[in-house]
């Protein structure tokens, strides 16, 4: 029987015992997690924790050694093109052809998601992302905030059921960051679900419904930001690093250790 998109249960993404290894390193080491429909879910973890690799496994860019990825009832190992049709992705390293103008990029990705876009449609989509002045520029000529808005515009081009965003606000000024949060929240209001990675505690607290803290390829804890603070506020490791009232950052550093990664 043909696999179909199923949205009858409220879980849009389910990951079961996922393991991804690169030679000796287990970048993802037995992760299980569920993202519900309409949820904004944050992955919080130090550099090298395995966040990008986890997203890559959902996107089908890396093959897991074991475990399962299920998106809207579709099996990640079997229904790849069907899954890709309902995923919207902004990769960590934005990787568009440097020679193309951004309106040419929108046209290309529109076509790849099987959406007929004439010049008018392209213009109005760029306008909605505040990029109408930039339509003839190349990706590299955009500011960081504009680049992220274009990545997000392309991620959203086919009205995805699940958005995967890898550090969408890294390196943005506060204004651009707020604007991007607005886009993400709008996406949820339109019925989408979002899985994003971030280093920003503030971002996790202000936009994410639930957060998973991940380190060394393993999920340490999952809950709403508020509950995470409550749950771990008496953990001695957390208390040791707290400077006054326990914050999400204290929980994060307490649970993942104080040493610097790169």
């Amino acid at each position, binding site marked *: 029987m043909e696999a179909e998109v199923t949205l009858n249960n409220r879980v849009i993404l389910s990951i079961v015992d996922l393991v991804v290894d690169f030679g000796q390193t287990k970048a993802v080491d037995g992760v299980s997690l569920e993202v519900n429909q309409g949820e904004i879910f944050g992955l919080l973890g130090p550099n090298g924790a395995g966040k990008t690799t986890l997203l890559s496994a959902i996107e089908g860019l890396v093959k897991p050694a074991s475990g399962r990825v299920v998106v809207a009832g579709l099996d990640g190992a079997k229904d790849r093109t069907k899954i*890709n049709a309902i995923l919207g992705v902004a990769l960590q390293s*934005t990787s*568009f*052809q440097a020679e193309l103008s951004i309106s040419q990029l929108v046209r290309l990705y529109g076509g*790849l*998601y*099987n959406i007929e876009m004439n010049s008018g449609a392209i213009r109005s989509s760029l306008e909605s992302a505040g990029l109408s002045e930039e339509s003839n520029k190349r990706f590299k000529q955009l500011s960081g905030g504009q680049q992220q808005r274009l990545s997000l515009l392309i991620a959203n081009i086919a009205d995805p059921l699940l958005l995967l965003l890898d550090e969408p606000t890294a390196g943005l000024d506060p204004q651009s960051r707020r604007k991007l949060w607005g886009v993400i929240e709008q996406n949820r209001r339109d019925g989408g679900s979002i899985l994003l990675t971030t280093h920003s505690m503030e971002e996790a607290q202000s936009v994410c419904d639930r957060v998973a803290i991940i380190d060394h390829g393993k999920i340490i804890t999952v809950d709403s930001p508020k509950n995470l603070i409550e749950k771990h506020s008496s953990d001695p490791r957390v208390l040791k690093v707290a400077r006054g009232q326990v914050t999400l950052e204290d929980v994060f550093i307490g649970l993942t250790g104080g040493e610097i990664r790169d």
Partner: protein
Amino acid sequence: MTSNLERDVQPRTPTPPFRAIKSLFIADFLVLTKSTRALLAAVMSPIYVLVISRSSKAQTRLGGSPFLLTLSVTLGLLSLSLVSYTMVVARDRERGVFQRLRITPTPTWTIMASRILMQVVVGEVLTLIVLIVSSQLLHVTLSFIDYPKTMLITLLEALVFLSLAQSLVGLVKSATTISALGSFLYAALLLTGLLGVSGVLGTTFQSFAKWTPVGAIMAVFQAALSQSPWNGHTTLALLACFGYVIVFGFIGVRYFRWEAR
């Protein structure tokens, strides 16, 4: 906090391959038009050969006008595949362009199909230019049937060189190494083909060079233009060309990695 929103939009379905190839092809074409340097190199070297060998004395010394015509086409196609194709693929792989393309809802082979199609089309256009220029400059008299014949052999020749190029990007990951090896192969293949055919390096080398990709395809090419008789060697050379496409194409696809790490 999860919302109870049910999506009223229909979930999207995969994009049919031909539709994806169309979009990719347009994008690849736009990228190509902006890579003027590589394109000029591919067009100018064959034209240059034709221009310097304008005089009939030069032509005889260089092996006659049909030889020069096939040489020009070969020069252009070699540079298109071993220099520009490999460079663009290596660069796009390092930049992560392929990764972004691969997560769209269409089979990944369409990404390469579009690029290879692009190379073949450019190769054919180049051949047409060479044919027109050589009929003007070299006074090669081509019958009507020579045109489709040449185009067909161009297709085979383009596939031979592209499969070589594909195995290069399949076996090597680093863009700088690929660029160096691509230029080296370009020169080495051209020289073995040329020097082998001319026989200046002795008969042992000649009998080896006859079977190199350039040697084999040029033999087929010249026989097809009825400048040399079609004999047993030509048939074997043709088979060798198919063999090259299969073997190198297989290696190139089997070992190709989409990501640079």
